């Protein structure tokens, strides 16, 4: 029973086990290696690789909130959309430089997160969940009302992105886009790991485990939560910007409820609270989606529905643990 509950909290984004801290460069390097391998094996699927990478960045931003800080949210698309529209509008009106666009999107996401977080983070649990949904829906309604600025249902598409650093132009094949997305993801993973391993990150984990205890120790709980929310907003904004720059269009669906729900699903599929789960979950989900949805969108719903129910009833971490224990027992028996 104990092994079961331990494993299930690990899957559900419960307390991350704070034992050995992996070095911050390991996960980015592994991710780059996996992306290179994928690019060599399927050279005609570069677009898919860049989609996986930008989605992984969004899920990573969610992991900082759900997995580390224990803030349940279904409104991550608001931050993603702020970055996407921020980058798109910046490219349309000011400058098409992609890297400055990333900075603008990060600031947009962080500013929205900090401003909304000051209000949202007063609440917890189900109320917080509903308020985050409301925020995203309000932004969605605003974006579709002010169609003069955002393009409404047609999407924001009349912007051009200049070559990266003036050297590499985004090509139709998607090679530069894929490298760009993976590189930004690697930087994001590195920064997120640095944050998670820092004393600040540890205090966030502490707040997740017991707010009352951390407050008693003198930690400014609300300020720390707003800070991690703003960091998550910056990452989500960058993810939106990468998506906007590579696709050349920002649609209303970048603020939609489906995106928030799907990114949460990806996080749980991969495992919350250890950052690597974000990459694994985003890859598995996006590949499944790509394969199943190419047959029939309802087919996809069937697959993901069954997968979700199975993940909850038979958590992968618990299964892995059981298999591991059985293997060890066998080895012991044979030796």
């Amino acid at each position, binding site marked *: 029973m104990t092994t079961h509950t331990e494993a299930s909290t690990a899957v559900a984004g419960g307390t991350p086990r704070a034992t050995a801290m992996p070095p911050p460069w390991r996960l980015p390097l592994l991710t780059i290696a996996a992306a290179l391998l994928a690019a060599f094996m399927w050279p005609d699927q570069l677009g898919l690789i860049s989609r996986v990478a930008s989605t992984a960045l969004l899920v990573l931003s969610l992991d900082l909130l759900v997995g580390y800080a224990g803030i349940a949210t279904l409104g991550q698309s608001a931050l993603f959309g702020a970055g996407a529209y921020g980058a798109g509008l910046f490219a349309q009106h000011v400058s098409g430089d992609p890297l400055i666009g990333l900075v603008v999107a990060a600031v947009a996401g962080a500013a929205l997160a900090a401003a909304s977080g000051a209000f949202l983070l007063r609440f917890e649990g189900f109320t917080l969940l509903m308020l985050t949904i409301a925020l995203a829906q309000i932004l969605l309604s605003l974006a579709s009302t002010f169609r003069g600025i955002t393009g409404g249902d047609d999407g924001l598409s009349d912007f051009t992105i200049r070559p990266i650093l003036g050297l590499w132009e985004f090509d139709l094949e998607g090679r530069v886009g894929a490298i760009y997305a993976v590189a930004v993801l690697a930087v994001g993973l590195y920064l997120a790991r640095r944050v998670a391993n820092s004393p600040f990150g540890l205090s966030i984990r502490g707040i997740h485990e017991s707010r009352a205890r951390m407050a008693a120790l003198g930690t400014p709980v609300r300020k720390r939560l707003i800070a991690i929310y703003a960091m998550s907003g910056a990452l989500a904004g960058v993810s939106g910007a990468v998506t906007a720059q590579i696709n050349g269009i920002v649609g209303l669906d970048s603020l939609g409820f489906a995106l928030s729900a799907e990114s949460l*699903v990806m996080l749980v599929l991969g495992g919350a609270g250890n950052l690597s789960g974000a990459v694994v979950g985003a890859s598995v989900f996006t590949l499944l989606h790509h394969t199943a949805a190419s047959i029939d969108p309802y087919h996809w*719903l069937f697959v993901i529905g069954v997968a979700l129910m199975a993940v909850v009833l038979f958590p992968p971490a618990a299964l892995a643990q059981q298999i591991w224990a059985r293997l060890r027992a066998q080895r012991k028996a044979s030796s």
Partner: protein
Amino acid sequence: MTLVLNILVDGVAYGMVLFVMAVGLSITLGLMKFINLSHGAFAMAGGYAVSVLAGTHGWNFWVALVVAVIATGAFGALLETLVLRHLYRRPELQQVLFTIGLTFFLVATANAIFGPQVRNIPLPSILSGSLDLGFRTLPTQRAFVLLAGLAAAGLLTWTVARTRFGIWIRASVDHADAASGLGIPIRLVQCLSFGAGAALAGLGGVLGAELMPLEPYYPLKYLVLMLVVVAVGGMGSIPGSLCAALVLGIVDTASKYLVSEWGSLLFFVAMGLLLAWRPRGILNR
């Protein structure tokens, strides 16, 4: 003046539909602390059942309605007994994931059985006429929605306030373990209230079919709407859900009449304000 009355009549009718659909979800949340995101599927099941029985097989509408509501309730109770009750003690996130997965599964199943197109529910002649109220004509279907909503609210309140079963429910909401220790058959209470909530959602699916057309994506489309009603009303509170549903229904109808280009902006702003004002429910200080 006429505009205000129009908004009130349509808003209250819409609110009644929201209440009937969402109250079961509120009970499940309050009683079992179970977040059931697949609740919309019960509304869809009720709608499809009437559409098949009355439309395809040509049953009498009222017979079909009663059979559909009972069948939806039984479906809910069965689902609860077989699967969902094992998730009551799991963390919230797992409940959310499982039930959203179940919703996806049921959406795909509904598409496989009924096809992707919108199904309509054939109304009997008495419901397709209209009543003259003096300042406007009220479709009898709307009047039926109002009456059915009032009846459901009254019946629920009476059950909870006056009957032995209501006492059991209130005791279980307050403290499930203590209630169980006092000999209240808590499993029966949970299963029956889940089934009743599902049956009501099925009724809501039929009542609201005019406003919320019946199609496979139905449970996902109107999920947020139901959650909003439950959150604003406060978990487990029947009068709270009614109050929240009416307020939100009127706000949404008013914004459709007056500033239709703003979409659902006002609805969610109203929800945010109400939640910020009373986070534990509109009637709970």
